[in-house]
């Protein structure tokens, strides 16, 4: 009996030891809103800092944090400093489950901001809904984020992959008519939504292949596409797999025109993964809806570069940094709009009200009935190792709306770089 008792006692002691760091949870503020005090608002995110999708994406959260530090140094928002807790999930949906629970239940964050990944974030939607946690600006273009009835607190950020697919396919239809078009995509909602958009414009593709991030080999897929005689290959891939696809194709002397989804097209990240083979990217067509890093004259880029130099240790400036800071800018705008008495319902209402003017080339679609992010994108082409915009931005929806050019004057950031109320 003694041995039993000792073992049980030891178990309790261990559990208690595990609890000891529990006191750190933010003391609740004025209205008892989790993660909010009079001087601070704590938000959390899950990001692939390690694992198959870490290339490039691991730079997003530090950039978001850097912009928050910049805002904090300018006095914060409504007297509150913004603090961002970043958890690594390694792009593994099982880890996301754990880290998001930790953020919500233990760290008591106010909201989850910009959680990254279609397969990863899909698994925590129900948990976040049950706990009524605002789930803002998910870093993915899956259409799952736009289900206002089912998930009233979840909002997207990226143009959804179907919208993007339609716009990329329109380019192919107009400029590469008569060529054999094929598709390689991630074997989840990312790939499927993208393909749905492409096929809405082009009809069925000549051949389609898929890959999983846990298996870093696309040899069989590229071989099959070559055998099918593809002349255009449209990719719905994360950056590591964009590089892998382009590299593998070159190895087997397969030289199609690549057309790549925005999330897998950052030239800096893909170029780094390709190493000496980076020139293979020349001529790749992709899309973007935020200013490009190479556009030195753009006031947004100037602002972000300044913040990056001062608060992000002058990290190598790529599209991931532009992305991270644009998310931060939008969150700060939402905080401003939600007002001094910050509540979870308040910020959701503020996002729904929309009217945000920011770095995006096309408008955000947020409304009572629409929770998807940017409504379009502009085409880019890699020339001399740099992505450059061509044509005009296009907007459309994930249904049957036509792909239409969008003409509106781009706004410039406020003088001090912090959005006003």
């Amino acid at each position, binding site marked *: *009996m*003694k*041995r*039993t008792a*000792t*073992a*049980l006692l*030891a*178990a*309790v002691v*261990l*559990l208690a030891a*595990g*609890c000891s*760091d*529990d006191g750190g949870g933010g003391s609740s503020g004025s209205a008892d809103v989790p993660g909010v005090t009079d001087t601070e608002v704590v938000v959390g995110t899950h990001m692939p*800092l*390690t*694992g198959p999708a870490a290339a490039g994406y*691991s730079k997003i959260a530090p950039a978001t944090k850097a912009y928050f530090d910049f805002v904090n140094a300018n006095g914060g928002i409504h007297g509150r400093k913004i603090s961002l807790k*970043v958890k*690594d999930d*390694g792009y*593994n*949906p*099982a*880890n996301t*489950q754990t880290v998001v*629970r*930790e953020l919500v*239940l*233990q760290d008591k964050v106010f909201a989850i901001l910009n959680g990254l990944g*279609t*397969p990863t974030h*899909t*698994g925590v*939607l*129900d*948990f976040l809904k*049950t706990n009524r946690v605002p789930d803002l600006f998910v870093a993915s273009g899956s259409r799952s984020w736009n289900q206002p009835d089912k998930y009233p607190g979840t909002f997207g950020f990226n143009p959804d992959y179907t919208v993007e697919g339609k716009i990329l396919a329109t380019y192919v239809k107009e400029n590469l008519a008569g060529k054999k078009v094929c598709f390689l995509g*991630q*074997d*989840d*909602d990312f790939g499927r939504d993208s393909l749905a958009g492409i096929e809405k414009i082009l009809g069925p593709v000549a051949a389609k292949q*898929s890959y*999983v*991030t*846990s*298996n870093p080999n696309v040899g069989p897929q590229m071989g099959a596409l070559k055998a099918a005689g593809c002349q255009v290959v449209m990719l719905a891939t994360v950056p590591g797999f964009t590089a892998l696809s382009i590299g593998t194709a070159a190895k087997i002397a397969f030289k199609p025109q690549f057309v790549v989804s925005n999330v897998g097209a950052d030239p800096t990240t893909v170029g780094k993964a390709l190493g000496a083979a980076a020139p293979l990217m020349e001529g790749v067509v992709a899309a973007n809806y935020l200013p490009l890093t190479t556009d030195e004259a753009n006031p947004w880029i100037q602002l972000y570069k300044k913040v990056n130099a001062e608060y992000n240790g002058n990290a190598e400036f790529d599209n991931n940094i532009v992305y991270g800071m644009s998310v931060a800018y939008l969150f700060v705008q939402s905080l401003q709009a939600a007002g001094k008495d910050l509540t979870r319902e308040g910020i959701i209402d503020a996002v729904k009200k929309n009217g945000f003017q920011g770095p995006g080339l096309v408008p955000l679609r947020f409304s009572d009935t629409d929770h998807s992010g940017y409504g379009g994108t502009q085409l880019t082409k890699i020339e001399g190792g740099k992505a450059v915009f061509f044509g005009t931005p296009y907007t459309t929806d994930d249904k049957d709306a036509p792909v239409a050019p969008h003409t509106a004057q781009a706004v410039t950031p406020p003088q001090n770089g912090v959005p006003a109320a």
Partner: protein
Amino acid sequence: MTDIKQKQKSGAPVPDLAAPVSARRRRIPAILVIVAGAALVLALTYMLPPFRNYQLATVGAYLCVTAGLTVLTGLNGQLSLGHGALMATGAYTLALAQNKWLNLPFSFLLAIVVTTAVGAVIGLAAARLRGPYLAGLTLAVAIVVPSVTSTFDETFNSDQGLSVVLDPPPGTIPMERWQAWLCWAGALVTVLALVLLVRGRFGRDMRAVRDDETAAKLAGINVARTQVLAFVVSAACAGLAGALFAFLAQSVSPGAFPLTLSLFLVMAIVIGGLGSLFGALWGALLLVILPTLSQSLAEEAGSHRLEGNLALVVFGVVLVVVMLAAPGGLASIRFTRLFRRNR
């Protein structure tokens, strides 16, 4: 298997729940321990904050599989590196059944039945293999999970996995407390069943087969049948554990059942003490505590790159230290004896 035998011979006191009891130590009725454990868990679920309850539930789910595995490896001498795959079988069965019929008790039952059937198939093959070949076979099972989910992606939805539809917990019970209750109910029932099983004739058969197959055969024990049965019992436990994990995470994906999980399970029962159900409890605790600990360590060190990788290092170090200090595992440390000597 031979090294397990050597470990036993080396004189390390591997505590054996069903070992011949010395006159000094009377055997405690297993049911008392289980009731005490249930009371303790119930009390803890009211004391702990939600996230700790979630972790407590995870310990319970792990205990199901470690208990089954320690019986298989410690008492029957079969090494399985594929229990992660058996857990995945249970988890996917629960997910598919839940999404179709939304009847939780039935889904759990189905998960256990299906995993038992899969376990029987693997067990039949495993009973013909010895040592490294057995390890190789079970390893292959563990590795095949992601490929199966991406090959049959219409059913299993590839890397993204499936989400599990769940009814809200009854009444006003918080979700995390409900999870802890269910997981520990599963764990305690599993442990009780295993104790009853290994204390009886089947336990003696298993140990006889482990120690010397020829001698066991001479004694009239059907070696192959015992081995297959041991594997099947252990698979049923793994199936329940997997189903509990699916219930806990409200989703299943191949990433939740990687090869490292199977390896961690074996490490956990070795650290805890092979063949001991208390060792299985220690192992289950470590499986939850060590990754959490290493993550907070990495966070304090300020290196995000470490976060995903430190757990492996910590586990390895703990294994080395425990094997040096207490070769029979954590469960072999007798606090009472230490106290007595001090007195």
